[in-house]
């Protein structure tokens, strides 16, 4: 039987990302359903990030969303770092 391990989470702030406009090709599994869903977001990165586990799985916080899916009720989103594209200004 594979042993369950704990994965430490660390929070941080990346000054180089703070205030940058970005797009996120997001999505995830719908709770209680076997299906995933793709979501597109665009907004401003706050610079806040969370690293989950080792090697780190990094997530950036995006606010001031000016593009979000119809079904998205919230005003912020955490974006997986590899699915974030900075918008050239």
């Amino acid at each position, binding site marked *: *039987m*594979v042993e*369950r*391990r704990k*994965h430490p989470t660390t929070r941080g702030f990346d000054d180089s990302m703070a205030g940058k406009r970005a797009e*996120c*090709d*997001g*999505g*995830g*599994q*719908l*709770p*209680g*359903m*076997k*299906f*995933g*869903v*793709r*979501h597109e*977001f665009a907004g401003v990165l706050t610079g806040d990030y*969370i690293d*989950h*586990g080792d*090697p*780190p*799985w*990094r*997530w950036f916080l995006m606010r001031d969303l000016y593009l979000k*899916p*119809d*079904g*998205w*009720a*919230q005003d*912020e*989103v*955490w*974006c*997986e770092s*590899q*699915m974030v*594209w900075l918008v050239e200004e």
Partner: protein
Amino acid sequence: MAKDPLRTPFCEMMGIEFPILAFTHCKDVVAAVVNAGGFAVLGEAMHTPEEIEADINWIRSRVGDKPFGIDLVLPASAPGAESVEDILAKIPAEQKAFADHIKKKYDVPDPKSAEALHQWGGLNQEIARAQIDVILDTKVPVFVSGLGSPAFMIPAAHERGMKVFGLVGKARQAEREIASGVDVVIAQGYDAAGHTGNIGTFSVVGEVCAVAGDIPVIAAGGITTGKHLAAALCLGAQGVWTGTQWLASRESDVDMIMKEKLTKITADDTTYSKSVSGFPMRVTKCPWTEEWASKDAPKTLPSPYQMLLSSSYTQAANDHRREDLMYDAAGQGVRFVTELKPARQIVFDMVEEALETFEAITGAEA
């Protein structure tokens, strides 16, 4: 003798006979397809690490050293957390009343058991990470990331001799996943079942092939027949990712009522509806989707509110096996699912039809 058009570099890479990938939530289908010379991937997003490990052991006992894959829906974005009670309290009276109206009109009974939904959303990667730990520790031949980027775990997978496939809906996602080291890219189009990207299969496969270089591209979305397989190879793909036809295979654990329903419907009997989850999702039409599409219906709610509204109907339909109420996710190729066949036969029929198609085009015997 002409070169076998189905013997693609992907087949060589994986040591398989046919470039057909079956995506399924049923491990019996995985074993049957792998033993028939194809490749199969078990969707495990809903399962605990312990269940995943048991499934992997079961599949290995049936297929030996032949390769197979495990798919997880890695998150790519996450909302803040809310409790189910908080969400239920926010559902407007108008939509709640409409859901009750549907239940009354179609005599929808109460579900036999309530769904165990305690927490909605939230940035909780611990579950995905625990699932990935099992996949790495058991050295599954292939890990498939069904949505988010697998970049963070690719080095660990490669160290263990595993391969990593990434499923994408856009060329830029493919470019980034290739840069991070994925071994195969699956390009999925709008024709697919469930929640899809917004680019059609022909377009997205072509776009991804154009940026993939030597990395094999697998086509996904609405692919059901041998002719589809031949077309995908002509686009530059090295194989096809298929889903709907396995739902109706003999080995599938889908309810027999739903299987028979799938053999009778066409693409027109599917709908891209927000009524189930709050997001557009391709499913077979049912009273729930049709009522919400009517002119008297209120606006569907955002997710997760709409999903909580629909969950009672969905569970009741399945618990009580009501054919008139049941639905499932199905791709636009569902018209070509016309009979309940063993998975092995589905593989062979696709291969035969693809070879006939190439022969008809080239005039040469493949």
